Structure formats: structure tokens, C-alpha cells
């Protein structure tokens, strides 16, 4: 306990100092929003990774992996493939250059200027301002619950403490403060997960022996009697049966939903605009790839392997021994790892939460200041004031949501995260790809795709996908049942992103083929200046 407090104090002091450094180096609103475009590649990569991976990715999804098994490693692969390789090499470089050409400071401003549409900018700004607090609240709930559980303090006190710390350094430090502390937090996360992976494999007799023990669990009748998984589960080291309920959950919701959703996350896209040239992006790729592998890869290996440990020690599989998927990782760490490691890991988890939340607050603040508020007279001082005011409002809404949500939503963390990822991907991914690669894509096509994707996503969540619809309760109120999907079909477990992204892509293509782009050649030339 003393160790935890000492580590936390040291950690918070360093974070506070980095926030102060950011503050010292922030002179203009451009500095505040995109770091004056001079962020170091290593800082950029770690900041991207630490923002990407939150508490819920380690604790929530690690627990889910204990339930569904190593098939979740497909998500790690997707995270590296889409989240780093595609995002950096194919999207990042073009985003950086085009953002530069258009003098864009935020994601909504980027797509708004590219399509010369105030509507797109305001729509994207509104989605960020209205829906991102739900996602931020999810991360905050995860972190506050972990603090409550680990330090034994009251949940509300943990929440308040956490929010105040993050608010201070985002509020004053801008993106520099956020990215410096992200890089520090990312380094901590990397070390913590490295130690965890090594000691788990080491403790279970090596890589092959550990996997073998996990595979063998499925031939144990006691384990089979304890399994309460949907149809299709074949064991922790096997893929679920093709098109079974488990397969749909794992592949559509977890692997595809989160895996592809990452490409259109405003708080991540903006990071490409913080570096000077494509060279910095090239240099950020290795750190990004290794970082993601060490985060989700380790969580999705340790999660399933905890079943071996729990079964050997208590005769129960992880989910039963820990009483719920969200508890698997914390309980496992506490019983399996030495006490000093818990103190380290405590800081790691707090850092994972803070780095994600700080970027979200920053994205919301800039959305208000730059995208929703029209700064006609170009007054820098006023702009900073609006931005900080917007951020303060977002922080208050988030804390309020984090206070209320757990009492009305069971499993609020996973639902809220999925909701925001799904909506962003459906609304923005097709037009974002269009902005970067298709010169002839018309404004009408971009707007139609965005609106179509957004509406489909909301409708699917409200009326079909049970995970959200049973919480939103609209379907139950109107039709007396949680999902309008036919009984016996797997539609109710098909993630909204699959349907809404397909609809959004389809609408964009159809409208693009039937309308003509009205952009002036000069505008397109400016956008694509220096892009091969």
C-alpha cells in the first residue's frame, strides 16, 4: 500500500512536470492544437499508442480474452495492421501533408476544408462534442473503478481526483502537455506489460508448455461443466466455429469493430498533423508497431492463460474464480504477481487511462473552439478562451456521465467504447479515405455517406444490436422487445460497424458515380500539393 502511494506520487509529479513543460512551450493556438508541427517521432508514436490503448483495452479486453480465448489475437493483428501500418503509412502521410496544405488544426477542420463544407466540419465537431464524452466516461469509469478497487477509496472520490489531475495538464499544457505525458505514460505501460508477459510465461513453464496447458483444459470435464460461453466456443487456443454466435461476437464486434474503427478516430488522426515531415512518420512506425504488440498482444495472451493459473490454484476457470470478466486481470495480478508489481501495474493502469482521456478532452476542446465556434475576427486570445471553456464543459459532462452511467448501465465501459468507435467509423471513414485518395469524389457523395452511415449506425444500435438496444430501451418501449432481429438469427450480435460502414461505403460510391465533383481544379491542386 505504501509502495503504491509512493509510486503514484512520483508518477503524478512527473506527469505534472511534463504538463508544465507543455504549458511553457505553448505560445499560440497552433501550438495548443497541433504542437506547432514539431513533435518528435518517438513522442508521436508513443502518444498515438498510449491514446489508442486505454484502461479498457488492457483490463476490459484482457478479461474478454480470458472468456473467449486467444482468437482475440486477431484484434492485435488488426490493431497493428490497420492501426499502425495502414494508418501511418497510407493515411498518416497524406493526412499530414494535406492537413498542412489546408492549414487544418483538427480532424473536423481537415475534412471540412478538404470538401469545402462547413456542414461536414460542424457535423464532425458536434459528433465529437456530443458523443466523445460517452467514450471518455467509459475510460474514466474503468480507471476510477481500478483506483477504488486497488486503493480501497470511494469510487466518487477516485473519479474526482482522477478528473482534476487530467484536467489540469490538458487545460494548460495543450497537445504538447498531452503528448509529452502520453509518451512518459506509454513508456511505463510498455515496461509493465513486458514484465507481466515474462513472468506469466516463466511461471507456467515456458511458451509452449503454457499454451499446451491451456489447450489441455478443454479435455477436463470439470472445466467443460463450468463453461458458460455462447455456442461455437472450441477452446482457448482455437477459433470459434465459423458463423456461430461466438464467432460473430468475436469477429464482428471485437475484431472488426474495434480493429477498423480506429482508422477514423479524430483524436488519433490529429496526431499525424503534429509532425514536421513524412520522415517523422516513418520513424514512428517501429515504435508504434512494437508498442501495440506489447499492449493488446500481451493482454490477449495473459488473459486466456490466467485460466490455467486459476484452475490449478482454485479448480475454477478465470471468469468464475474472479467473478466476472472485468475482474479477471486485476484478481489475477493480485494473486499471481508479487506485491511490488501490483504497485507498478497500478500506475500503469492509471497512466493508460490518463493518456487516453487527456487526448479525448483535447479533441473535444479543439472541436468546440475551432469547429463549432466561428472565430470571425481571428482573435487568438478569444479562441484559446473558447477552447479551454469548451474543454471545461466537456470535463464536467464526462465526470457527470462517469458518475451516473455505472448505476444505469451494466458493462458501461465496453458499450460506450464500441458506440463511439462504431459511429466514427461509419460516419467518417469513407469520406476520410475519399479525402486522401479520390480527387473526384463530390461533396454531395461525402455528405450522403457520412449521414447515411451515422443514421444506420444509430438505428442498428437502437433497434437491432442487443448490446446497446437493451440499454437504450427505445426498442423495448416502442415494440416491447429489445431487438427487432428475427428470433434464431445472429443479427442481434452483428456489430453496428459491419452494417453501417457497408451502408456508408455503398452510399458514398453510388452518389459519387451519379454526381459530378464541383471542386475547382485549383482547390484540388492545393490539397494534393506534394502528394504523389
Amino acid at each position: 500500500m505504501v509502495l503504491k502511494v509512493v509510486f503514484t506520487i512520483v508518477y503524478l509529479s512527473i506527469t505534472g512536470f511534463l504538463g508544465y513543460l507543455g504549458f511553457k512551450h505553448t505560445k499560440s493556438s497552433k501550438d495548443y492544437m497541433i504542437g506547432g508541427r514539431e513533435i518528435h517521432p518517438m513522442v508521436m508514436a508513443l502518444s498515438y499508442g498510449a491514446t489508442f490503448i486505454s484502461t479498457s483495452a488492457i483490463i476490459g479486453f484482457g478479461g474478454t480474452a480470458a472468456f473467449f480465448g486467444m482468437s482475440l489475437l486477431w484484434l492485435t493483428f488488426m490493431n497493428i495492421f490497420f492501426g499502425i501500418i495502414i494508418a501511418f503509412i497510407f493515411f498518416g502521410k497524406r493526412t499530414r501533408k494535406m492537413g498542412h496544405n489546408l492549414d487544418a488544426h483538427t480532424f473536423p477542420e481537415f475534412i471540412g476544408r478538404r470538401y469545402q463544407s462547413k456542414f461536414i466540419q460542424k457535423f464532425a465537431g458536434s459528433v465529437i462534442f456530443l458523443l466523445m464524452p460517452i467514450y471518455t466516461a467509459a475510460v474514466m469509469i474503468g480507471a476510477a473503478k481500478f483506483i477504488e478497487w486497488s486503493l480501497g477509496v470511494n469510487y466518487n472520490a477516485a473519479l474526482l481526483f482522477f478528473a482534476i489531475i487530467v484536467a489540469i495538464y490538458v487545460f494548460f499544457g495543450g497537445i504538447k502537455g498531452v503528448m509529452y505525458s502520453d509518451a512518459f505514460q506509454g513508456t511505463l505501460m510498455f515496461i509493465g506489460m513486458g514484465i507481466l508477459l515474462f513472468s506469466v510465461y516463466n511461471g507456467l513453464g515456458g511458451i509452449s508448455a503454457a499454451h499446451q496447458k491451456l489447450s489441455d483444459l478443454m479435455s477436463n470435464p470439470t472445466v467443460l461443466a463450468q463453461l458458460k460461453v455462447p455456442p461455437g466456443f472450441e477452446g482457448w487456443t482455437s477459433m470459434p466455429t465459423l458463423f456461430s454466435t461466438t464467432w460473430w461476437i468475436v469477429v464482428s464486434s471485437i475484431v472488426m469493430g474495434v480493429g477498423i474503427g480506429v482508422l477514423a478516430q479524430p483524436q488519433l488522426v490529429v496526431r499525424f498533423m503534429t509532425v514536421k515531415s513524412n520522415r517523422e512518420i516513418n520513424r514512428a512506425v517501429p515504435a508504434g508497431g512494437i508498442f501495440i504488440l506489447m499492449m493488446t498482444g500481451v493482454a490477449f495472451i495473459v488473459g486466456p492463460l490466467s485460466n490455467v493459473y486459476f484452475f490449478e490454484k482454485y479448480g475454477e476457470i478465470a471468469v468464475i474464480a474472479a467473478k466476472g470478466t472485468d475482474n479477471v486481470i486485476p484478481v489475477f495480478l493480485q494473486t499471481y504477481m508479487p506485491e511490488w508489481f501490483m504497485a507498478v501495474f497500478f500506475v500503469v493502469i492509471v497512466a493508460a487511462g490518463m493518456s487516453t482521456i487527456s487526448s479525448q478532452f483535447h479533441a473535444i476542446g479543439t472541436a468546440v473552439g475551432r469547429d463549432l465556434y466561428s472565430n470571425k475576427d481571428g482573435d487568438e486570445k478569444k479562441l484559446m478562451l473558447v477552447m479551454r471553456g469548451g474543454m471545461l464543459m466537456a470535463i464536467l459532462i464526462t465526470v457527470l456521465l462517469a458518475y451516473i452511467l455505472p448505476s444505469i448501465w451494466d458493462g458501461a465501459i465496453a458499450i460506450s467504447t464500441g458506440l463511439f468507435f462504431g459511429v466514427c467509423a461509419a460516419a467518417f471513414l469513407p469520406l476520410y479515405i475519399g479525402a486522401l485518395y479520390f480527387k473526384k469524389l463530390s461533396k454531395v457523395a461525402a455528405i450522403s455517406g457520412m449521414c447515411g452511415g451515422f443514421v444506420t449506425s444509430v438505428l442498428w444500435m437502437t433497434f437491432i444490436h442487443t448490446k446497446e438496444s437493451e440499454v437504450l430501451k427505445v426498442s423495448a418501449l416502442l415494440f416491447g422487445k429489445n431487438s427487432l432481429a428475427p428470433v434464431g438469427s445472429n443479427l442481434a450480435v452483428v456489430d453496428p460497424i459491419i452494417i453501417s460502414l457497408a451502408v456508408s461505403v455503398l452510399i458514398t460510391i453510388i452518389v459519387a458515380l451519379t454526381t459530378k465533383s464541383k471542386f475547382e481544379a485549383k482547390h484540388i491542386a492545393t490539397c494534393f500539393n506534394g502528394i504523389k
Partner: protein
Amino acid sequence: MLGIEDLNIFLVFTLCILSAIFCVIYGVLNWNKGQEKECDEIKEELMWEENENKINELL
């Protein structure tokens, strides 16, 4: 297969590691590529300085 039952899972286990290795190789091979042209950089720095001055006056 490292104690993993299903070829699919073994494949993804390997793919995860290979894709991270790809990232490293890509980064090393392109370490010095993609730099902006020097004249562009100077032009930009000048513009930047001008903006900074304007802002400093305002503040």
C-alpha cells in the same frame, strides 16, 4: 505449434509478431526518407515566425 491447438490461432500468433517486425524493418529502411525539401522548410519557418510575432504582439 507452440502448444496451440488450432492452426488459425498459431497463424495469428505468428502474424502479430511478424507485423511488428515489419514495422521495425519499414522504419529502419525509411529512416531518412520523406524529409521536406530544404527550401520548403525555410519558407515555412519564415511564415511560422511571422505568425508567431503577430501572436506575441497580441498576447
